[in-house]
C-alpha cells in the first residue's frame, strides 16, 4: 500500500500535500545551535523567493512593500491561509523551526497558488528559530501584527527560558512591531496563558486591547478557529486563553 501511494505526497483529489507524510515531533529545542541559513540582515531577505509573482529577482527591495504579518511558530499554516485571503494586499510570513512542518506549509501554499490563480501570492513560510533570528528578518517597526498561537508550553521551570513569550524576547518583538502594532497570543494551557499575559502586562511597551476592540477585530475569531491546534482544542471541548496587546511608545 505504501508502495502505491508513496510516490506522491500530494493528494490526488485536493492537490494539497497530505499531512501524514510530514509528521514531526511536537517539540524542538530552540536553544540548540541551528545550521539552516539565516539572512545576514532584513535587507538580505530575498522577497522574490517568497513572493515570486509580486517580486522579480531583480527587485532590490528598497522602497517596495515589506512583510507586515509574522506568524511565529506557524505550525501547519492554518492561520496564514485564512489571513491570506482576508488581507490580500498584505505580505505575511510564517516562521517555523521544525523542518518537515515548514516543508508541508511550503507545499500547501504552492498547491493553493496553483489551484487558485492570483490568490495566496502574499503568503510564505520560512524555517528559522525566531527566538534567535527575528531581527535578521524584520527591521525596526516593520510589522503590524505578530501571532503566537498555541506555543510549546515548556512546563518545567528549568525550561521556561525556552518559552517564545518572555519579558526579554518581548523587547525584540516590540522592536520589530510598529507603534500600534498588535501581538496576538492564545493557548489552551492555563498556566502558559497566565504567563504570557503577565509578561505582556508587565512590559512598558505593550498595553492590553479593550474588549470592545477585540469584538470588532476579525482576526481575533481566527485565533481559535483557523489553526490546526485550535480546531483540535475545540474538538476536545477544551478552553483557550488569549492575550492580545498593542505596541505603544514607552513613556519616558
Amino acid at each position, binding site marked *: 500500500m505504501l508502495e502505491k501511494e508513496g510516490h506522491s505526497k500530494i493528494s490526488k483529489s485536493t492537490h494539497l500535500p497530505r499531512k501524514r507524510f510530514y509528521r514531526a515531533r511536537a517539540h524542538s529545542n530552540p536553544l540548540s*545551535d541551528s545550521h539552516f541559513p539565516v539572512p*545576514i*540582515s532584513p535587507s538580505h531577505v530575498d522577497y522574490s523567493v517568497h513572493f515570486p509573482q509580486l517580486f522579480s529577482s531583480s527587485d532590490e527591495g528598497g522602497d517596495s512593500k515589506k512583510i507586515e504579518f509574522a506568524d511565529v511558530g506557524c505550525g501547519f499554516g492554518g492561520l496564514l491561509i485564512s489571513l491570506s485571503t482576508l488581507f490580500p494586499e498584505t505580505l505575511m510570513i510564517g516562521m517555523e523551526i521544525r523542518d518537515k512542518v515548514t516543508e508541508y506549509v511550503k507545499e500547501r501554499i504552492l498547491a493553493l497558488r496553483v489551484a487558485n490563480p492570483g490568490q495566496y501570492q502574499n503568503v510564505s513560510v520560512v524555517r528559522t528559530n525566531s527566538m*534567535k533570528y527575528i*531581527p535578521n528578518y524584520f527591521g525596526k517597526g516593520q510589522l503590524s501584527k505578530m501571532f503566537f498561537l498555541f506555543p510549546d508550553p515548556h512546563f518545567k521551570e528549568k525550561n521556561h527560558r525556552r518559552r517564545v513569550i518572555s519579558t*526579554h524576547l518581548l*523587547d525584540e518583538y*516590540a522592536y520589530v512591531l510598529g507603534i500600534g502594532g498588535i501581538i496576538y497570543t492564545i493557548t489552551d494551557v492555563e498556566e502558559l496563558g497566565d504567563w504570557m499575559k503577565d509578561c505582556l502586562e508587565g512590559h*512598558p511597551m505593550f498595553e492590553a486591547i479593550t474588549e470592545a476592540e477585540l469584538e470588532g477585530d476579525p482576526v481575533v475569531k481566527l485565533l481559535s478557529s483557523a489553526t490546526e491546534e485550535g480546531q483540535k482544542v475545540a474538538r476536545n471541548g477544551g478552553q483557550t486563553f488569549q492575550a492580545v496587546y498593542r505596541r505603544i511608545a514607552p513613556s*519616558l
Partner: protein
Amino acid sequence: MEEPAIEEGDNHRDVEVAPALISVHPDHKFIVVSIGSDLRVFDLQGGCSVTLVDDSSGPLHKDSIRAIRFGAEGKLFVSAGDDKLVKIWNANSWHCISTVCSEKRVSAVAISKDGLFVCFADKFGVVWALNLDGFDENQVLVDKKAAPVLAHYCSIITSLEFSLDGRFIISADRDFKIRVSVFPKKPLDGAHEIQSFCLGHTEFVSCLAFVCAPDYPEGFLVSGSGDSTVRLWDITSGSLLDTCEVGSQAGFLESNGRGEEHYSAVIDLCTTPDGTLVAAAIQSLQGIMLLNCNISAKSLSIAKVVSITGGSFIPTSLGTASCAEFLWMVTGVSTLHGLDSHSLARVRVISGFRISSPDSVEHEPTMLEDDEIPGGEKLLEKLQGSVSIENKVFSAAAEAVKMAMCNLLIKKQYSADKREFRKRTRNDKKIKQ
C-alpha cells in the same frame, strides 16, 4: 583534523583556557593584567606593585577572569569571570568594595558613564545591572543584588560597551549580532527599548570600541569579528558604514594550504582618545594592525601593521589611557599543558599611539624595548611574573588561545554519524533524579 580537537574540548571541559587581559587606568595611573584567576596591578605613578585588599566577605577569584575594566573616571575597577563573581574595586586604595554573585559565568563587564551602574553579561546572554548608588570611597557595599536588564536569547555575550554619551548600552554576541539598547533612567527595571541592531558580521562578534571626533562627539561604533573584518557602524540607525577586511588585505594569511576560515579572527580593538586611530589585535598576526577611521567620509582603512620582533607575540588584549600615547598589549594564557611554566603573560608597549594631524607625517608608532616602557623592569616583573620568557612558550600559548576561542564561539559542525551518537548520549533525557 579538526574533529578530534573538538571532541577533546567536549570531553575535557577543564582544559578550557582563558586569555590574558590588560586594562589601563584612564589617567595612566595603573596597569592591570589578569591571567587565570590572578589579578596583577602595577602603580605607574608610584612605580610599585599594588596589593589587593578584599574586605568583603566573599572569596577572591577562584577561576579564570574573563573581563576587567576601569570606570570612565578611573574611580572604579571591575573584574569578573568563570567563578561567577563580579568584584568591584576602589581603583585608588584597591580595596574590594563589593562582590556580587552571578548565576552564570560572566563574559563581559561595563561601567555606565556616570559611574552609577556596573553591568555584566553572562554566558546565557543576559545582561545584569548593579546599582552603585551610595558608593563611597572607603565604604564596603553590602547586599547588592543585580537585576536583569536585557537578554540575547541564550547566546554568549562577548562584549559590552556604553555609548560615548552614555545613552545606549551596546552588547555583542556569538550569533553575529550587535544590539543597541536605550540605557534607561531606571536601569533596574530593564532596558526594553531597542534602538537598533547592527547586523552584517558573518561570524561571532568579538570586540567593540568607539571612535569619535570633535565634530562627531557621539562617535561611531567599531566592531571586530571572527569573520576577519572590522566594521564601522552608526548605532542610531544600525547601518553599516564600512567594512575593513583585515584578513585578506594585510596578506598575512597563512599560505600553508590550510585556508581555515576562522584563522584570523579579530581578538581585540582599541581606539585612541582623539578618536580616529583603531588598533586591532588579530589571531595569527604577530603585531598590531592600525586602522584609520575617516569620520567625515565614514570609512575605515588599513594604516599600517606594526610588527613585533623577537618571539611570536600575538596580543590577546589591548589597552590605552585617555591622556598617554601608549598602547599597552598583553599576550598570555591561563594554563599551558606540557610545558614547564603553568601560565604565560607577556606585556609589550607601543608608543606614539595617536594621530597628530591627518595630513602631517604622523608620530611613528614604535615598539618599545623592555627597558624603555613606563614602569620598567619592576612593572614587567609584577605583571608578567618574570622578566624573561622562553620563546617556545609563545606559540603554544597562541595555539591554546585560538583553540579556546574556537571552542567557545564557533558553532560546532558534526557529521551525520556523530550527530546520531550524540543524540544517543544526550544527558537531558531521563536520568535518575
